[in-house]
């Protein structure tokens, strides 16, 4: 057994243990903290699987935004948790849930164990045409040249999720400002941190976004970092969320998918197919789409964490 294999097996055991514990523990807060740790482990696993793009996403999402989102949620559920814990579901419900989960697991296991060996792959075909896209990172090429429709739908899904969150707002607060818990002292340590880190975070976020064309990285990862920086500033009480009725905010939110669609459908005229890029223009067009999607994603991700509006819009 090689050393690398031993490390991988150890990682797998650890991640299984962490996953099991996250499900088994009764306390929501403990479970959420377990989940954040699980995300960190997952980052390591993706690195071991030689998928740095995914590792980067997991590091930004799992370590940052999802963690903050879930911890905030757990803090809110605190008050109701004691009541919920007394309501244990009946024997029948629990047995049914167990059987259902076991069936899904078994089905997945059967699928995975019966995969043909070697697994069918389109990787050589994708790599062969990489040159015509002008993009160096195969992941970006797949996302924006071969499967751009999926990527467009992903961006739209993020927006739809945001609208879903907004729709939870009380009628009175519609069009108002989302709010984080910001009772921090503007001279305190959190404010200190939030004054120093964001400029550096902006550089790193833009860097991760920019290199995505040729190396692991990309708009989702970069946007997550930028959104996290914005949330940090707001969380430290140094800034506020804009009211969601602001025109510029709504324009930026739809601008990304809109530019994507316009360029995609322009392909009918210029290249003979929807989402096809005219020869020689692939890279600039892909870059234009990514740049337009960037503000959309930053806003949408930060506002998703912020939750529904909780304050009246300013008159």
């Amino acid at each position, binding site marked *: 057994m090689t050393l690398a294999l031993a490390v991988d097996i150890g990682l797998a055991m650890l991640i299984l243990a962490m996953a099991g514990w996250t499900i088994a523990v009764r306390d929501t807060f403990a479970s959420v903290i377990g989940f954040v740790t699980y995300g960190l482990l997952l980052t390591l696993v993706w690195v071991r699987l030689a998928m740095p793009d995914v590792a980067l996403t997991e590091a930004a999402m799992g370590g940052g935004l999802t963690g903050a989102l879930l911890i905030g949620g757990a803090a809110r559920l605190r008050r109701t948790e004691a009541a919920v814990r007394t309501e244990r579901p009946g024997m029948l419900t629990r047995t049914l849930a167990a059987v259902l989960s076991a069936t899904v697991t078994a089905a997945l296991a059967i699928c995975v164990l019966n995969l043909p060996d070697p697994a069918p792959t389109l990787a050589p075909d994708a790599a062969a045409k990489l040159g015509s896209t002008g993009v160096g990172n195969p992941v970006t090429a797949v996302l924006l040249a071969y499967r751009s429709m999926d990527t467009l739908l992903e961006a739209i899904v993020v927006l739809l999720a945001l609208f879903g969150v907004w729709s939870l707002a009380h009628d009175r607060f519609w069009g108002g400002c989302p709010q984080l818990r910001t009772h921090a002292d503007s001279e*305190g340590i959190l404010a200190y941190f939030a004054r120093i880190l964001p*400029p550096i975070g902006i550089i790193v976020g*833009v860097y991760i976004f920019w290199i995505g064309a040729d190396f692991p990285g990309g708009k989702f990862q970069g946007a997550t970092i930028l959104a996290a920086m914005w949330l940090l500033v707001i969380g430290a009480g140094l800034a506020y969320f804009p009211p969601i009725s602001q025109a510029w905010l709504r324009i930026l939110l739809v601008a990304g998918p809109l530019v994507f669609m316009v360029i995609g459908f322009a392909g009918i005229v210029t290249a003979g197919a929807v989402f096809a890029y005219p020869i020689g223009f692939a890279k600039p067009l892909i870059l234009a789409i990514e740049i337009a999607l960037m503000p959309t994603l930053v806003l949408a991700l930060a506002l998703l964490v912020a939750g529904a509006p909780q304050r009246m819009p300013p008159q």
Partner: protein
Amino acid sequence: MSNIPMRAAMTRGAIYLGFWLLLAGTDIADLSAGLAAAVAATWASLQLLPPKGGQFRYAALARLALRFGQESIIGGVNVARLALNPRLSLRTGFLVYPVCLPTGMARNTFGAMTSSMPGTLTAGIDDKGALIYHCLNVDESVTAQLTIDEGLLLEGIGETDDDA
């Protein structure tokens, strides 16, 4: 725009651009994105941390950095020794240290630095604005150490009396 913000903006912009070049390399093709990022970072930095006049004394800051390095190593060794010692010999307790440093950046930098130094951990601010420290071993030497650090930091940011 007066002189101070302008100069601060140029300095900070240069630093952020330098950081970009470290990350992305000096490829000309990447420079436009780097400039945009540097401008955004400088803007954010000026918003979050409005520049004030005042002279840094780099010699004192360098001495402080050196001391910080040494002390954090001692701090780490100290904790390691305590943790691995079969008999836990801790006399933990709180200590209130009244700070002369101005509130805001200077005081927080002090709090952050001393938290990495042996035996001390900043655990909040009391009503009068003094820092509350949690100490692994409460005795006289803690205050003496903190005073040395504070003196160096005061000198470094040009807040000492001999400035005039």
